[in-house]
């Protein structure tokens, strides 16, 4: 009987201790969870206010501006991979690409990094520069418009198929871009209103929600086997008065 009582008591003590531990742990877990949540909120708040670029990044941007080549880019590439996005830095890099004839592999590498670092800032900067350049008629400004047009298409090519945010590419001169324009690209929710576009044949592009109000086409623009709202539209569509229609 005594052993029974001892055994029962021991079990009760263990159970009480366990309940105590469980309650304690629940309290700790709650505090930790709240702290984690607070940290997340603080991080989000910090993210909402863009951090100023690091002094080293600014120095590396300056080096790239004065000598835009693979070597200076390799250094800046590291900064962009590790540091936060900054419209100021992005616009300076875009400015370099807009004003220099750089080797295509270098332009591609910079475009890929710009996209990874902050795609919306990159496209915003490209658009501003392109629109400003398009207003002038000088040969120099025409070259800027051409380079930024190529850059815009490169950035669009980087847009993955699941992205649906609205992109403003209105009033731009987007005639330069080469054979890859519209090939498998996701231009879902891209607004081309009032822009100048090269005609040609797009293929396999996602054209859901793309806006073409008042676009100026150099020639007929068609889209073959393109996607509309996740569905493949078999055959060829033609852009006419801002709308895709069957020929």
């Amino acid at each position, binding site marked *: 009987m005594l052993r029974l009582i001892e055994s029962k008591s*021991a079990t009760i003590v263990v159970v009480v201790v366990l309940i105590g531990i469980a309650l304690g742990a629940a309290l700790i877990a709650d505090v*930790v969870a709240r702290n*984690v949540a607070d940290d997340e909120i603080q991080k989000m708040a910090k993210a909402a206010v863009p951090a100023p670029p690091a002094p080293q990044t600014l120095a590396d941007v300056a080096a790239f501006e004065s000598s835009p080549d693979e070597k200076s*880019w390799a250094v800046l590439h590291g900064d962009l991979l590790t540091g936060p996005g900054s419209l100021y830095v992005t616009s300076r890099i875009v400015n370099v690409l807009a004003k220099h004839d750089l080797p295509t592999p270098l332009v591609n590498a910079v475009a890929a990094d710009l996209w990874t670092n902050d795609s919306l800032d990159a496209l915003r900067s490209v658009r501003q520069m392109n629109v400003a350049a398009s207003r002038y008629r000088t040969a120099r400004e025409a070259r800027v418009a051409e380079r930024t047009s190529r850059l815009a298409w490169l950035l669009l090519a980087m847009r993955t*198929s699941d992205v649906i945010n609205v992109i403003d590419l209105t009033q731009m001169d987007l005639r330069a871009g080469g054979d890859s324009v519209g090939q498998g690209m996701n231009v879902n929710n891209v607004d081309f209103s009032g822009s100048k576009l090269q005609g040609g044949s797009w293929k*396999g592009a996602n054209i859901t929600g793309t806006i073409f109000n008042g676009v100026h086409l150099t020639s007929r623009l068609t889209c073959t086997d393109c996607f509309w709202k996740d569905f493949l539209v078999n055959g060829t569509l033609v852009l006419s008065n801002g709308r895709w229609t069957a020929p």
Partner: protein
Amino acid sequence: MDSPRTSAWLIGAVLLIDLAILPWTAHTFDVSVFLAHTDAVFFAHVPPRTSWALGGIMLVVMLLSQFPVLVNVQVWNNLPVRTFLFKLPVFCADLASAAIIRALSGERSAANSWALRYLIDPIVFYVTIFHGQYDALPNMFALAGIGLAIAGRYELAAVALGFGTGTKFYPAAFVPLLTVVAFRHGGVKRALAALGFFAAATAATMLPIVWGKADIFTSELDFYSYGSGGNHVSSSSLWSLVPNAALFPRLEQIVAVGVPLLLAAWELRHRSNARDIARAAMLTAISSFILNPGNHPPLFIWAAGPLVLYAAIADDGLVSLLGIVLSSTAVLIQFCQEDSREYLSLAFGPSPPFAFLRCYAPPVALQFVALVCVVALVAAAFRPSESRRWANVSRNAAGLVALAVFVLFSASIAAGIAAAVPTRGHSTFASMEKNIDTVAIAASRTGTGQCVLSYKAYDAVFFAGNEFAARYANASLGYTLYSPELLTIRGEPTPTKALPSASHNVEIVSINQGLFHITREFDITAKLFPFQIEERMTERPCTLIPGTPLLIYRFDMDAARSALSRSSLADRLKSFARTIETP
């Protein structure tokens, strides 16, 4: 539940529910990877050990489970049938585990209820019946090993643990305990004999897999334990509660290995009885996954068998109850890490998630619950024995809680399946298999201006040197952003403009887990034929986007399968025999 008859009826009912659920749910990625592996053996004549980094027994059982697909090729895309066949061996393994627990139960009248308790353990039900993972097999061998050690059959126990290790490694954690028990009860000779038998059984089941590819094997294990950067700690490992734990994952792994050694050493103090052995085995099992930095929720099943075995031997309802909490916590952590819609798409195509299988608490809070549970388990396991009456009460209470959790869980699954039936579409397996049969290798750069590209695919390029499979494979170079260049492939200068190309917008994961956006691909199949494991080429000018161009191999499983389905069954069986004989 206390009556053996009632428990037996309940076991029958649970097994029927299990069998009814088996075909309809499975973890899409995990199960697809295994099914694609069997397809590669059956339809591409790929030697089974190619790209296999788990145990030999698991490989054999898995191939046997899918053998009907080789006999009737049309079954390949009938996913409910394939899933059922795939899970059947582990369902049987759980039955065997329940039988072992029943046989070793301390209180004979409660033997059936302990067997039932194992079968309705939330993590057992989740992993074997719902998810479709093969951990029930090593579990069965581990339980057999522990049971045989308790019975004094140390050599047989060692063979069982060897087979367990040859299935999925972790049963090796029980070997120190077995050695100590054999030493204390039978002397040095029996301890050494046990070690010898273990080594022989492990070698027999593992050497055919590991031989000649130990480096690939260890790098795979490294990846699963510490992530691609070697500094990852899983959010379901207890180490994730420690600040900066990701700095020392290898040290943490040493602790996970050290605990079983300490537990075994602790048993040197006396001639352990059944309860001592079962308790040490339970704690060994818990430490081997929960302190593993690469732990993930389904691995909590490693503890289920030894835990219920200890509870059955000690007739300990409190440990049983804590086990249910630990198992339920694991399942809850899983649904915080991954959406439950992952489980229906093989049978039903893209489907809505299960209404009740979702994240209910922050993972960190669940980790704390797991920690408290483990601490409580240790305390409970070392407390004095209870009275018979009290043991009955606590056992029944734990059994009822387990049954309630089982009913809730299985009802949630049944509701999810019922909701998916009306919207049933095409299985996602075909597209998953296409992805799995795509092998992308990131470029490694050397040479002047870093323009020499090296690609090493290890045995991931399973059609290299495989005459049959190579016919259905193609190779391409994938660029994130392309610019014209001159490639020199196998000494032959080739302008990329001259190659057939296609534009894409795809994300491809390379074999070292890098994610690449690919916008254009150039077909170089003709240039790389016959395929090799390693390739080197140069480019002028250099692509500057790191890792690109990717060398992408794709295998057209549909074409290979169609070709094979036209041959006779006898020819298919002959081809299969030749394939498994290939070293």
